[in-house]
């Protein structure tokens, strides 16, 4: 079976996000960018399935600016076999919306015919949590989102999902879309020899036009501002003082 893993280049999760003063967005010039943390988990899942013999080939796909090739190289260094870069924007500040990403991924799936697509549950920049579900809809495939356990049995996948009430296990017909949650696995680091090897692995470059997809956004961004800041608090010296403040000053207990 072939597995497709969409990986997004996002601001590194450790970077302190700065909102531009003119309200046009977040400052992304010269900040550290990395693979979306959930996508590392998706790549790791695919590699483990390959190591277990369920998967033959792992294809990583990224849609965005040209620099997303670094993210794809990371996926290749972790263990993906081949990569497809879809250059959809010249400007690092343009985020391609999940609907457009899903349409491009659908076209890639039509060409590649994977048995599974494993993506992240959420991109930590736009926090949309939408692409996997949208792709699944466009393909008419089953979906298993927020996965914390995945097992393949014949032509089905048994997936345990992290939901508000706890855990839910479902059985989905393959081909399927699985979106992964944080506790599925701990992704490996790429070793230096594998980073070197990854440089020789194939990477195709495409554009949305190659797939006949229009990436014009449906949501017009009117402004991006900093959230309201909280008023400074106080330090208390003892538990007694804390209880008194909570009772008399804050009135919350």
């Amino acid at each position, binding site marked *: 079976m072939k597995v497709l893993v969409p990986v997004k280049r996002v*601001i590194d*999760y450790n970077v302190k*996000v700065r*909102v531009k003063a003119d309200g046009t967005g*977040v400052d992304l010039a010269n900040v550290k960018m990395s693979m979306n943390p959930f996508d590392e988990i998706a790549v790791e899942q695919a590699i483990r399935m390959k190591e277990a013999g369920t998967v033959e080939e792992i294809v990583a796909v990224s849609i965005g600016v040209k620099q997303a090739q670094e993210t794809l190289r990371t996926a290749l260094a972790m263990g993906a076999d081949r990569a497809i870069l879809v250059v959809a924007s010249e400007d690092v500040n343009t985020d391609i919306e*999940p*609907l457009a990403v*899903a349409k491009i991924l659908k076209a890639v799936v039509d060409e590649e015919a994977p048995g599974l697509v494993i993506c992240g549950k*959420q991109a*930590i920049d736009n*926090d949309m*949590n*939408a*692409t*996997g*579900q*949208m792709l*699944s809809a466009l393909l008419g495939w*089953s*979906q*298993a*989102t*927020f996965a914390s356990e995945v097992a393949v049995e014949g032509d089905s996948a*048994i997936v345990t999902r*992290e*939901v*508000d*009430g*706890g*855990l*839910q*296990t*479902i*059985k*989905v*017909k393959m081909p399927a879309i699985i979106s992964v949650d*944080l506790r599925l696995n701990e992704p490996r680091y790429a070793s230096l020899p594998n980073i070197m090897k990854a440089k020789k692995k194939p990477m195709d470059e495409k554009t949305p036009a190659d797939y006949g997809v229009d990436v014009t*956004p*449906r*949501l*017009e*961004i009117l*402004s*991006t*501002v*900093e*959230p309201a800041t*909280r008023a400074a*608090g*106080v*330090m*208390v010296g*003892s*538990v*007694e003082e*804390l209880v008194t403040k*909570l009772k008399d000053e*804050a009135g*919350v*207990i």
Partner: protein
Amino acid sequence: MAVLLFAEVTNGELAWDATSKAMTAAKMMGDVTVLCAGAQASAAAAEAAKLEGATKVLCAEDASLGHRLAEPTAALIVSLAGDYSHIVAPATTDAKNVLPRVAALLDAMVITDVSGVVDADTFERPIYAGNAIQTVKSKDAVKVVSIRTSTFDAAADTGSAPVETISAADNPALSEWVEDKVQETDRPELTSAKIVVSGGRGVGSEENFELIESLADKLGAAVGASRAAVDSGYAPNDWQVGQTGKVVAPDLYVAIGISGAIQHLAGMKDSKVIVAINKDEEAPIFQVADYGLVGDLFDAVPKLKEALG
């Protein structure tokens, strides 16, 4: 403008808190019809009829809708979509699973986790773990929107809308439910509790987490956790508060042995009063705390329990 509000129905019961808060947001977009779907949904529909602002309740009962599997549920919503300009739901894991699927089937972009309704086309939503608030205007014919319930007040229960029974759409039969692992608890629900007591990695073990739980019980609070506490097995996954867990905004949030990573703050920084107990005075959690106590939690928490009587 006609709005379809997809109610949160779990095992036949209406989740009043989530649905009523989403109702408050939905009302700002137009006249609201509420959809209750499930293997059993009539009791939920009768409850939903009391939602102030509901003009009608649709009740779809069918075995295929029993566990809110994404494919049959999305098919049902899409079959109704033609009558509505907006499809809205509270941003629960169920709705996050279903709504993007609905949106893609309608060739619309989904707008998730909306924290403010500017007008019927324009919405505010947090991005980058709540480090920025974006205002977006939708150009789609139908707006598919999930609502961050922690920022809206509940609608009143004084309504009396008529209930209409409808049938399910064809089940694509792509997935089956296997089992649920749900923890039974007498504690209030995390997302609607007035007080939340959360523990982090500093708590150190699953056994020690009972200290956090007993403090919560003393306060009649829900229990939350940081990702590190959940990953380490101290607490179940559904207690995680944060960017990728639950978003809470109680009157009082007590963070114990939690450092205050932005991903955690994303889920609790809109709480009215924040208390932090941490042995490291440099911990970033103190920057958002109204009351900070520097100290060992194993000393402070028992004392706190005692002081509460």
